């Protein structure tokens, strides 16, 4: 809707509310970042102070970057996250399409079955999963992680996407059917592009737990070659660590890549905002 005819007061209030919450949302992050650039004493003495030259220190970062092959870890995390998201979105959207489009018997039950996965923490299945992976020779491969994350992400994806797919106009899909589009084409060419905002949302939701997961990398792929960045940086947040410089630096470093990933998806989201169906 194109209009600026909202009153400035109202716009002002909107911004005020948003800014207020933005401050709440960003403050802790801000605190982390500024303190990661300070020396230890001033982190404590003046937590809210900016890293002025006199207290500026990169010692935390030095410590962190010494610790391991962070580029490789980052790469691993990236591959695992991206591939898993791809499969979650693809398989999830396909299943959601089937559930929302075809009213077959047991439709709801199938939906429920696919939702079971969000009701039990998948961690509990660790042993069986690990045994399976050992049997399949997938331990210490990224494939193992991708499989687990794909399975883990599916229920939520199906759940959300089903809901959104129901808002795609029937007439539109019918127009496609009459145009001779197969169900595949209707799915790929019509439905998927139209629910892009929802897809992007699901992508982001899927991404977070994968990126931040510590458990499965630890169990399934702890080797140096397959370590993820979360696992790599976890070293600093152990029980006996008081090296706040390093912790804050590691945290800051951990925020950056996930932010970048998010920005990628949210760009998709903005582009996905094609105007709603016509008439």
């Amino acid at each position, binding site marked *: 809707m194109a209009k600026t005819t909202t009153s400035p007061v109202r716009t002002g209030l909107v911004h005020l509310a948003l800014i207020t919450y933005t401050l709440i949302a960003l403050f802790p992050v801000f605190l982390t970042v500024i303190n990661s650039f300070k020396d230890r004493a001033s982190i404590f003495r003046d937590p809210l102070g900016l890293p002025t030259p006199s207290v500026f220190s990169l010692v935390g970062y030095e410590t962190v970057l010494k*610790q391991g092959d962070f580029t490789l870890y980052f790469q691993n995390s990236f591959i695992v996250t991206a591939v898993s998201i791809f499969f979650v979105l693809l398989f999830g959207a396909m299943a959601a399409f089937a559930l929302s489009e075809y009213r077959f018997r047991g439709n709801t039950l199938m939906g429920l079955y696919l939702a079971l996965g969000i009701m039990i923490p998948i961690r509990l299945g660790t042993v069986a999963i690990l045994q399976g992976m050992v049997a399949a020779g997938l331990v210490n491969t990224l494939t193992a992680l991708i499989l687990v994350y794909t399975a883990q992400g599916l229920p939520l994806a199906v759940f959300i996407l089903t809901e959104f797919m129901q808002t795609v106009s029937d007439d539109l899909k019918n127009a496609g059917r009459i145009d001779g589009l197969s169900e595949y084409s209707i799915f790929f060419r019509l439905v998927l592009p139209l629910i892009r905002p929802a897809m992007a949302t699901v992508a982001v939701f899927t991404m977070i737990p994968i990126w931040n997961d510590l*458990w499965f990398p630890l*169990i399934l792929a702890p080797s140096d070659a397959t370590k993820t960045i979360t696992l790599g940086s976890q070293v600093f947040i*152990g029980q*006996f660590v008081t090296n706040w410089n390093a912790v804050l630096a590691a945290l800051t470093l951990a925020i950056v890549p996930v932010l970048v990933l998010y920005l990628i998806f949210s760009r998709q989201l903005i582009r996905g905002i094609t105007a709603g169906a016509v008439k």
Partner: protein
Amino acid sequence: ADTELTIESWRTDDLAIWQEKLIPAFEAKNPGIKVKFAPTPPTEYDAALGARFDAGSAGDIITCRPFDKSLEQFKRGNLASLTDLPGMKNFSDVAKAAWTTDDGKDAFCVPMASVIHGFIYNKDAFDKLGIAIPTTEAEFFAALDKIKADGTYIPMAMGTKDLWEAATMGYQNIGPTYWKGEEGRAKLIKGEEKLTDAPWVEPYKVLLKWKDYLGDGFEAQTYPDSQNLFTLGRAAIYPAGSWEIGLFNTQAQFKMGAFPPPVKNAGDACYISDHNDIGAGLNAKSKHPEEAKKFLDWVASPEFADIYANALPGFFSLNSTPVKMQDPLAQEFVSWREKCKPTIRSTYQILSRGTPNLENETWVESANVINGTDTPEAAAKKLQDGLDSWYKPAK
């Protein structure tokens, strides 16, 4: 080709020491064996290790938690018996106690280190305020009063947020003095004493008195908070474990000293908690048992003890061959072994095998007592009731 051994450990902090000192030393002597130190964050270690055992993907060398945790793994057949390992003769039975079956027949981990509790203090502060090292409970509280009156320092750096600080640094630190160390612990296990008996309640009463000397908001003070409070020079006394020494040395800008838990009355026998903490075991399903045993044998050697204890001051070797340590603070701690009677933490052996778990309950109740949530008596009763619900002392 070389065989590669993987070490499972929760000591992420020790990564550098292993990589730079210990492993090269071993590999130099044992060509053909490569060793990899693969630590897991401590919070995840037990769960991750358990899963790996179950699925058969655990490493060759397992760093052993003391007592029941490892015993359980041994019983499940995950840890191999090391009774016949030649190096085991380098350790006394006491040293091996944490990794031996109840009947004493099988040993399954090579003892690596123990930790000792006591108090580290800010020497500069003590000097400035003219406080002498307290040896009795009265002196101890007098000292605290004095510091508090002065106001420059928080008398004692401890928080209850993380629970275990209150239990480990508090209850287990000063407790042996009251329950008379091993003697009381044995009685408890035998059922001759109960946690509601005076020797076990009294430490709680003392802890309750600590409350007034802790920093503002100690309820939400975490362990790292406490450490920082002390190392930044804002607190005068730190109820400690010896493992702090390494870190404190690098972080504190003032002189530090240490004293053992004060006795109740002058002249009483003193007790310290000298707790077996780390061992090294063999994964029963390791593909390279021979090489792994070679490695474990080396861990049992004085050479290892020497490197380890000096690299990690505060982790005291359990090897019968004494280790010469460079660190004065560490020397101070270890010197208490001469004058006080050592004991291990009361809850670790046998008493934490069931549900509710006595150790965990002790954490909760120690914090509750200091926070004022429970009275010492109530806390003790809860603990004893919990214990009674499953523990039947062998008569």
